């Protein structure tokens, strides 16, 4: 199910919605994560304070980012860490390849990093003859299945265990028909253990980079970043400039909210602080811009860089849960995917894959104003003359109609009349995509205004 850029959000969602039981399962599995998150959050009386602190630390860092990046680099260099700067994905990939080829690396083990996904690192390295093994279980599953991630924290959430069983049978030789998650996980552990032990270099993403220490923090539950990072002598860590935090106190705030908000755990199993190469080894950090400084030139888009990639907004999103991660035309789905990726969606539809319910903003641990950014993305599209087909023609009319009390009241009474007296077959086509899976509403006898005046206005 490779993602193509031609189909729009609704068309891709429709593919996902063909299997109704899968959609129900998907929606419930993600809602379960939201419920676990709620329990973890409500167990801390200071939760709202932590969200506010998370937001403020990020805003402070982003508004002083140049200083902190320089401080971070200087502290890393003191520790013997080599720091590289990349303006875009291409430059990042080139730097990584140069380091790897200097050390004649044939096999690279990699733990989860949305940034390397963003830069398309894997295909680049593979073209240059380097084998790349994704080591997070979910990532390995989709790598073997030749798919991109469908979620930033649980990348294989779209697959059922039977499908994983089938895939593992074919690729790593598990028993035919076996689908028990424990059995499959153990088999993957064996398979990946061999990869860890035979890798020439390891690469990880970065959850936080601490400026006044010159250290990076990597969080995983599986231990794959550390199994990789602590075996071969050579390790590389890629980070967006937005991963910076000023000090340990800021890191302590985000470490308290990240896993709670992502999956309802009080902290990830491993929160590792890499602060220098291992004896005799080499440690490289690649700092990547790739459009982030541009987002920072816009007051509202800048706030999207407060994101710590917990996935909480994706889990709670009613549209994501029912349309799946492959419907967004961007490698990050859900609300945060729209917030940072809508401008790259050439179908100009994902900005509308949102009900503006605001649930995402409410759960976000760093208070990214997701719904505001999404409606802003719509405005940007409109200003660029890129409204999706249809909306461009009727939206200005809707605007005019809603703006005039007389026109609005008149239109509403026509609608009530039509719904009551015209045949269904004649009306249904007017409801368009909205009516595809919905019935037409029953028309009330009077308008709300009339009802209110009669019943409540005294």
């Amino acid at each position, binding site marked *: 199910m490779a993602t193509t850029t031609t189909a729009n959000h609704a068309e891709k969602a429709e593919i996902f919605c063909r299997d109704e039981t899968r959609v129900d399962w998907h929606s419930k599995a993600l809602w*379960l*994560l939201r419920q676990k998150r709620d329990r973890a959050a409500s167990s801390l009386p*200071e939760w709202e*304070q932590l969200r506010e602190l998370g937001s403020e*630390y990020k805003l*402070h860092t*982003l*508004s002083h*980012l140049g200083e902190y*990046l*320089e401080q971070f680099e200087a502290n890393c260099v003191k520790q013997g860490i080599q720091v590289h*700067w*990349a*303006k875009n994905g291409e430059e990042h990939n080139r730097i990584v390849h140069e380091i790897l080829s200097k050390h004649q690396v044939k096999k690279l083990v990699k733990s989860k990093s949305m940034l390397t996904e963003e830069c398309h690192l894997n295909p680049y390295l593979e073209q240059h003859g380097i084998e790349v093994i994704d080591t*997070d*279980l979910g990532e390995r*599953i989709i790598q073997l299945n030749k798919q991109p991630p469908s979620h930033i924290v*649980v990348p*294989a959430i779209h*697959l059922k*265990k039977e499908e994983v069983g089938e895939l593992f049978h074919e690729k790593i030789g598990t028993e035919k028909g076996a689908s028990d*998650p*424990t059995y499959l*996980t*153990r088999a993957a552990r064996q398979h990946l*253990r061999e990869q860890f*032990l035979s890798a020439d270099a390891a690469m990880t993403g970065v959850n936080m980079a601490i400026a006044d220490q010159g*250290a990076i923090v990597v969080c995983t*539950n*599986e*231990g794959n970043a550390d*199994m990789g*990072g*602590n*075996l071969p002598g050579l390790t590389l860590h890629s980070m967006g400039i937005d991963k910076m935090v*000023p000090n*340990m*106190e800021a*890191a*302590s705030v985000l*470490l*308290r909210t990240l896993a709670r908000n992502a*999956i309802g*755990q*009080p*902290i990830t*199993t*491993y*929160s*590792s*602080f890499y*602060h*220098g190469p*291992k004896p005799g080894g080499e440690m490289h950090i690649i700092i990547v*811009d790739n459009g982030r*400084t541009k987002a*920072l*030139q816009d*007051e509202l888009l*800048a706030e999207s860089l407060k994101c710590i990639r917990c996935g909480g907004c994706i889990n709670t999103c009613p549209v994501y849960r029912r349309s799946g991660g492959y419907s967004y035309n961007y490698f990050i789905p859900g609300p945060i995917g729209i917030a940072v990726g809508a401008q790259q969606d050439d179908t100009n539809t994902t900005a509308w894959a949102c009900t503006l319910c605001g649930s995402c903003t409410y759960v976000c641990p760093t208070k990214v104003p997701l719904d505001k950014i999404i409606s802003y993305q719509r405005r940007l599209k409109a200003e660029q003359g890129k409204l999706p087909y249809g909306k461009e023609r009727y939206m200005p009319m809707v605007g005019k109609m809603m703006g005039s009390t007389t026109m609005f009241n008149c239109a509403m009474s026509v609608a009530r009349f039509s719904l009551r007296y015209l045949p269904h077959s004649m009306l249904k086509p007017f409801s368009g995509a909205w009516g595809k899976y919905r019935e037409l509403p029953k028309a009330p006898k009077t308008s709300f205004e009339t009802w209110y005046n009669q019943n409540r206005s005294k």
Partner: protein
Amino acid sequence: MSSKSDILAALGSVALAKHPMPQVEIAPRLDDLIGQFEASLKAVGGTLVKEDAMSALQAKVAELVGEGQQVISQVADVTGNRETPEDPHALRDINYAVIDGEFAVAENGAVWVTEQGAGIRIAPFICENLLLVVRADSIVANMHQALKQVDLQSTGYGVFISGPSKTADIEQALVIGAHGACTLTVYLV
């Protein structure tokens, strides 16, 4: 211009107003730190031994060694049967690692382990089972206090470990034992 100077130049015109550095002012929950830690550790899949923990650990390790299990110990007065190698790959067959944690965190069951404590960075991950020793009076309430205790300037690598490794990547079913240790026991001394 180098990419670094380009990036820094672009950061000269950030649209955000300058925000001041915030301060964490959260009162830690200090009641029954051991009880809190025990509950948190259990919730993340770990086990706590607190009665006569040092002798329990010594007896356990003697028994494991007697069974021919491969045990590496960095803890004083606990003797394993393997040395710390220079090449981390040499630990591929380790069954048990015994390591000192510097302190523990009540709110999440995590224990802070450094490369000095582990002897070699890979030890707490490559072993099948991890046995950590922590002083009962070293437990702090939460991560704010924990990170105040961490002294990164004295170590190249440190890790908070909260329970055994786990994953829920197949249909959200929790499986203990992903890539790191499959069991974690904390001995409180």
